[in-house]
Every structure is written in C-alpha cells, then in structure tokens.
C-alpha cells in the first residue's frame, strides 16, 4: 500500500516542503530509502524501525520503499524520523490515509519512541501557514516556537504513540493555543544608560547613531568605557516589531540558538564576537551554510571591540553586508540568503599602545600610528558615518552624584526620530537616514540659503571629500530629526562636525 506524508526542511532561513512517500508491497523483505539523503537521514531507517517496535507497532516483513522528494534537493537533519514513521504506519494500514491531509509532520525520534525537539521550526511553520496547511504535528519541546504563527493548529506530541492515537482519533492531542507575544511592554534590561556616569558626548553620539541607524566607531584608550556604552545601545533602540521579530527568530531558530520552550525573540540582539572570529563565523558559512554573527545581529547591534585586531580579510568582508543588509552565501548545494541589517558599533585604540594622545603614556611614533590605522580601508570607512574620540574617565565623573538619563527617556526620543524619518523616507523605499543615497541627500536635508553658505564654508575649511560630506549631512539629518525639525539647520550641521572622521589615517590628527 502507498502513503504520503508532508514534511519540511530548511533552505537558508526559509522553509521548504518535502514529501515523504512510503510503499509497502510483497517481495523480498528489504527496507530501501531513496531521494539524495545525507547520512543522518539514511540512519533514520534504523531509528524508525526500532522506535516503531518499541512503541508497540509490528511491521510484518515486506518490501518497504521510502522516497523523499523533490529528488534534487539534498535532505539533511533528523527531522524526517517522525514523517517516515507515520508514512510507514499509514502504508501498513495502522492509520487512515485521509487524516494526514493538510498536516505537516516533523520531528526526531529516539529509539524508545520519544520525540526530540529539532531546530528551524519557526521558518517551517511559517512556510506551512503561507501554503495553506491546516495543522502541524511537532515535538512537544518545539510547540511554543511554532505557536507564534497564527491561524494554524499546532500539536505538540511527546512520543510516537500520541501521534498515532491522535491521527486515529482515539485520543486527540490538545491543541497549543496561539501565543500572542507582548510587544507593547518594555522588557527589563539588565543594564541601563543611567548607570553611565559622565561621558555626555559619547552618550549623545550614541543616541544620534541609533536614531539614524548610523554605524559608529569609537576611538579611545583601554578602560574608557567603550564596551560599557556599546552594551547599552540595545536598551535605547525601539522595540522589535512583530515582522522584525519573526525574521530574527527564524535566524535563531535555524541556528539552533533558541532557548528551550521559548517563543519569539522580542529583544534586539547585541552580538559581540571576539576578534579571533573566523570569516565564516562572522559572515556565515560552512559546508551547510549557517548564519554568521552579522545575521545573528539582525535588527540589532554588532559590536566589534578591538576593531583593528580582527584579521583584515575578515573586516573587509563586512563591506557588502553593510551595503545590502543581506548576505548571499553560495555553496555546492545552493546559495542561501541571510538577512543582516545590523548597526555596526566598532571600538578601537588610536595607536598600537592604545594611549594616544596621552603623551605621558604613549610612546608610539607617527609612522607607527599611521601603519596601525592603515589596516582600515577607505571603502569600509565610507560605510561608517560617525567617529568619536573617547577619553579615560576622570575619577570625579565616575563617582559624581548626578542624575543620569535613563534608557527609557533616551529611547523615546530615538523612537520619535526614527518614526519621523521613516515617514519621510517611505517614498524612496528606505527607512533610515544612514541609507539615504547621496544623489537625493541635499533634497532630503532641505538646506536653506544660510545653511548653504555655512555648508560651503565647512566644505572648504575641512577639505571634505564627496563621501565625507555625505556622511556629515546624513548625521545632520538625524540630529534634525531628533529635534523634530523638518529641515536641517546650521546648528545641526555644526554639531554633526563633531562626529566626522578628521584626517583619519593620522589618528585624528590634522596636518
């Protein structure tokens, strides 16, 4: 007898349909599995037969053929254990074939028939909903992850027996209620900006950077609080929207990084890879490509501390993702697209010893500094809008008794600025000031006569390149947005000058 069960697998961060067919006929008793199978899928045969026997289902010796289609897609992972078992049981007549309709079945089996959670459930569940599936049967441990997708029946089964009883209608599994993640409430972060004493300039710069999603580079000696500030950036970012959250959770689901029993990720990620990271771990890759750190930082912050200590080839790979907001990885079995719209926050020392311009401590010569800073290429620097020098904190600042602004207050201003620019930029198909292309930049900034005059003066005074000028204007636009101003005024441009990159190759020294 022939039977068919629908299941799913992953392709990048998207789900893809896999049909599992089983046929049982008379002939020599063999068990054949076909359909471009990776070794873990081939091993499913043994797992399935043992699990079936241990769950009390006897399979009389017959010629069994299992086919996983489409035949040109390589099947990987242990997610097919359950669909294969169900297909076999249906083919042997334990389960009526009609009850499998409109159902997507997925899960890994252990030898005693227990179901184990698998990774990548969210993209597959999302795929199932979009393709009109009525329900999905999956391991109990995955039920909450799938339950955030509305409009589908989710059944979380603990073992094979439960699934069979459910399908036979002898004992239905209880449906998992749809989870409505709460997006309104502010989640408590373990850190807050009010803990940062002083560093007014740095805080202001970070506020602007977040308000326009500008990439930012901190330059300063060790112990100046660069990492401390960077860690607090997610606390002032606006809450993830439902769509953003789904996108992000898919990436984590595929990477197997979702915590057990968790539903959607509702906090913006903060990723801080060590500088020994390989290019594959940062960008994504592997024989079966997995999302890299840049994708795990999607809609959040990628913080690269000791930016210059990263291998040059690794840093340079950031160019294309920073430009496109996604990364395409091509491998033997296909190419995969992972989204990676992150805000880059980089921190570095101004010289090899780290203490420049503190002449009491820094012994580095100018050529040494130049050589050190030359590791950053111009194309990469072009993608970083803001640069700020950081100094070691004075004792008094560290322990001063002053009321500092909390993340919530700063976050409100940032959210308003973001909403304002999103409205303005909608006709151009972009959402952030940092993405404004240079050809429409002046139009969007709306400089008046006085501003034009100042801008010309600034241009000549600082001998700006076209790109350098564009970076300053983008930041000015964000400063204006923070103030609620539709046009960019002189004051906004003047403030933005503090965040430009002056004579970068000399560590900020001009002339």
């Amino acid at each position, binding site marked *: 007898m022939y039977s068919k069960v629908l299941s799913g697998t992953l392709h990048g961060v998207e789900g893809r349909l896999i049909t599992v067919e089983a046929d049982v006929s008379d002939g020599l008793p063999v068990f054949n599995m076909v359909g471009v199978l990776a070794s873990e899928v081939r091993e499913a045969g043994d797992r399935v037969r043992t699990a079936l026997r241990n769950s009390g289902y006897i399979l009389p010796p017959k010629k069994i053929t299992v086919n996983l289609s489409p035949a040109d897609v390589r099947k990987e992972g242990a997610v097919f254990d359950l669909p294969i078992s169900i297909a076999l049981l249906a083919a042997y007549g334990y389960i009526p074939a009609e009850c499998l309709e409109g159902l997507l079945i997925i899960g890994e089996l252990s030898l005693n028939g227990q179901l184990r959670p698998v990774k990548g459930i969210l993209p597959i569940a999302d795929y199932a909903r979009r393709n009109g599936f009525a329900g999905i049967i999956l391991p109990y441990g995955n039920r909450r992850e799938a339950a955030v997708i509305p409009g589908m029946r989710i059944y979380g089964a603990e073992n094979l027996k439960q699934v069979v009883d459910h399908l036979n209608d002898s004992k239905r599994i209880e449906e998992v209620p749809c989870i409505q993640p709460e997006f309104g409430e502010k989640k408590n972060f373990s850190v807050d900006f009010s803990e940062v004493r002083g560093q007014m*300039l740095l805080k202001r710069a970070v506020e602007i950077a977040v308000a326009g999603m500008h990439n930012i580079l901190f330059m300063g000696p060790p112990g100046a609080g660069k990492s401390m500030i960077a860690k607090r950036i997610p606390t002032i970012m606006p809450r993830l929207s439902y769509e953003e959250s789904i996108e992000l959770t898919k990436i984590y689901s595929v990477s197997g990084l979702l915590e057990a029993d968790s539903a959607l990720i509702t906090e913006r990620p903060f990723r801080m890879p060590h500088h020994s990271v390989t290019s594959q771990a940062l960008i994504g890759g592997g024989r079966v490509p997995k999302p890299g750190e840049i994708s795990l930082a999607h809609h959040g912050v990628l913080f690269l501390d000791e930016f210059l200590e990263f291998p040059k080839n690794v840093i340079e790979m950031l160019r294309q993702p920073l430009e496109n907001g996604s990364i395409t990885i091509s491998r033997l079995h296909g190419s995969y697209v992972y989204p990676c719209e992150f805000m880059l926050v980089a921190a570095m020392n101004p010289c090899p010893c780290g203490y420049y311009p503190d002449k009491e401590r820094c012994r580095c010569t100018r050529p040494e500094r130049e050589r050190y800073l030359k590791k950053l290429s111009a194309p990469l620097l072009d993608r970083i809008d803001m640069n700020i020098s950081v100094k070691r904190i004075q004792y008094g600042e560290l322990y001063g008794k002053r009321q500092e602004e909390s993340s919530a207050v700063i976050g409100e201003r940032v959210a308003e600025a973001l909403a304002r620019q999103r409205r303005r930029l909608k006709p151009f198909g972009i959402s952030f000031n940092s993405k404004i292309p240079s050809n429409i930049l002046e139009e969007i900034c709306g400089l008046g006569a006085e501003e034009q005059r100042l801008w010309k003066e600034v241009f000549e005074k600082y001998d700006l390149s076209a790109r350098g000028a564009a970076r300053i204007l983008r930041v000015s636009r964000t400063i204006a947005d923070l103030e609620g101003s539709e046009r960019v005024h002189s004051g906004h441009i*003047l403030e933005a*000058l503090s965040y430009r990159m002056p004579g970068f190759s000399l560590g900020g*020294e001009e002339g």
Partner: protein
Amino acid sequence: MTDRDYYWYWLNNIPGIGRITMRKLLEEFGTPERIYRAGGAQIESLLPRAAQRESFHISKDGKRIEESYSRLAEKNIHFLHPDSPEYPKRLATIPDNPLGLYLIGKMPADGVKTVAIIGTRECTRYGSEMARYFGRELSKSGVAVISGLARGVDGMAHAGALAAGGYTLGVLGCGIDQVYPRENYRLFIDMERHGGILSESNVGAKMAPGLFPERNRLIAGMADAILVVEARERSGTFITVDQGLEQGREICALPGRVTDHNSVGCNRLIKMGAHIVTEVQDMLELLGVEGAHLSNHEKLPVEGRDVQTMQLSPTEQTVYGCLQIEPRYLDDIIEELQLAPQEVCMALNHLAVRGIIEEPLGNYYAIKL
C-alpha cells in the same frame, strides 16, 4: 674632485681613525696629502693599534676613494673640509672643529644671521606652536633657522621657517642619508630642496646616542644665537647650550610658568643669565638685524586677547573661555560647563569653522596660536 678634496676625503673615511687621531696626524704632518705620502715607520708610531695601522694602509686605494666620492655626487651630497671654500667660517673657529662635513642643499649665505631654535622632543602644543612661530617670523626677517631635525621643537622650527619661504639648516647626528626620525620624512625632502642638511658622518652611519652631543656642537657652532623653546630639568638641550657658551654664542630662552614641567629648563637658563625672549623683536635686536623695529610680524597670540572684538554669542564666549593652548577633550568642556553636549559641539565647531579656534585632534579643541 681636486687633489685636496681627495686627500681630505680619504683622511675622513679611514675606519677606526677618528677626529682625535686625525688631528694628531695633521699636527705632525701639516696636510692630509703629506699624511698620505708619509713613510711607514713615522705613521706607525702615531697609530698605536694594529687594526688602525692595517686599515690605514688598506684605505689608500685610489679607485675605491674616487668611487665612493662620486657616489656622493650622484646623491647630490657635497663633501666639505677645512680647506674647501664652502666650509662655514662659523665652524672654523669653534674648538674641535669638524674636519669633514657632508651637505645636501646649501649652507647659509655669508652675512646671514643664524638662530638655533632648540628644545625637547616631547614638547607640548605650546612648545611646538612657539617653535613654529619663531621659526616662521625669524625666517621672514631673513634669519636662517638652525636645528636638529628631531621630533618636537626641532622639526616644528624647520617647518615654520619653510612655511615662510626662508632658509633653514638641519644638522644630523647620523649619516647624511639617514632619515631619523622617520616621521620627519616629508620635512627632509622639503629641506633638501629649500634649505640644507648637514652632517659630520658619511652615508650609512646609523644613529647612536653618543652622536647627539657631537651634533649639538655643530648646531651651536652654526648659530649666532640659541633660542631654547622648551626644556625639562634634564635635557639634551643643555649640551647645545653649554657648547654655545663655550663658543661664545648668545643664549636666549622663552620663559614659562614655574610649574610647567617643560619650562623648568628654560626658566633655569634665564636665572643663570640667558636673554629673556617674549617676542620676535627681542631676537632681532639681539642679532642686530636691520629694520628690527619694523613690525611686519604677526603678533604673538595671547590667550583670549582678541575675543572681545569678534562677534561671539554668549555660549560661544563661555566655551571659548574654557579653552587653552593645550588641546582639551570635548567631553571635559561639556563636563565643566554643564551644558548640553549639542550646544557645546555647535559652539565649538562654529568657532572652528570661522578659524577662531583649532581642533588639532579629533574632538580635542584648543585656542588658535
């Protein structure tokens, strides 16, 4: 290459024979040519070490000497010796005068007054700006600026002189072709074209600490007056000053605050009787430069003096009041004034764009000098 050049060049380039031995030989024989032609026994009694005697005999290889000399010419390096017409008269009279000099570019013209501007390598912005200012302004009056092409005060003095289009001479302690420190590479190139670089060592001689005092002797020797811009309590600058005193040069110093680490040396010099210099005219009068009273010189900037005449907003005035000669970090200014960062940034950048203040380093601001 005249015969005299040949013999002097030979004498100056015998390995293991230095200025002291050379002088001993010259006393005995009179001229390098006679040393060259002198017989074995007589020479050997004057050269105590066997290695010296050996290298003395090997070095008399006409072809090698001529080749080495022509290689200098290819690099536009001139060799000067006490008998050559270009040999500076100032150096002829100093004790232990050099017996061979290597020169790229030109020596200062006859009759031109010269000032050595010297100071510490680890100077403050005040020091470097003052060195540049005096280099530039003295240069405008046709005074040649002499210094040691080192980091800090030296380099800035040269740069100031070059900026005014004047002549400046750099004296090296290492070989004439060595660029040390590397960071002054651009300065070296400019000075080769528009000034001069002088050394007592032939090409290839590496820098060694013992060579600095030797060089300082030449700096003092080339100068009519020595101006010390910044010096700590113990400083190599004092070697130059001591040599200068021995050679009868005028010693001048810029006074500094008594609490400033980098001015302790200057103040001590003044206490011991050095001329106090507070403006360019002081130097010019001391040197007897004609028209010293004519002031085509930029006035020495004094902190905050001209702020009243410039139209500044109240915030800008407050912010300006916070600035000093030494660059201050933006956040420190924000902290001191307790103003919003954006206000301070705006005010500072507005002042910077108008050229009233400077941003010598990213996010560090200082008043303009």
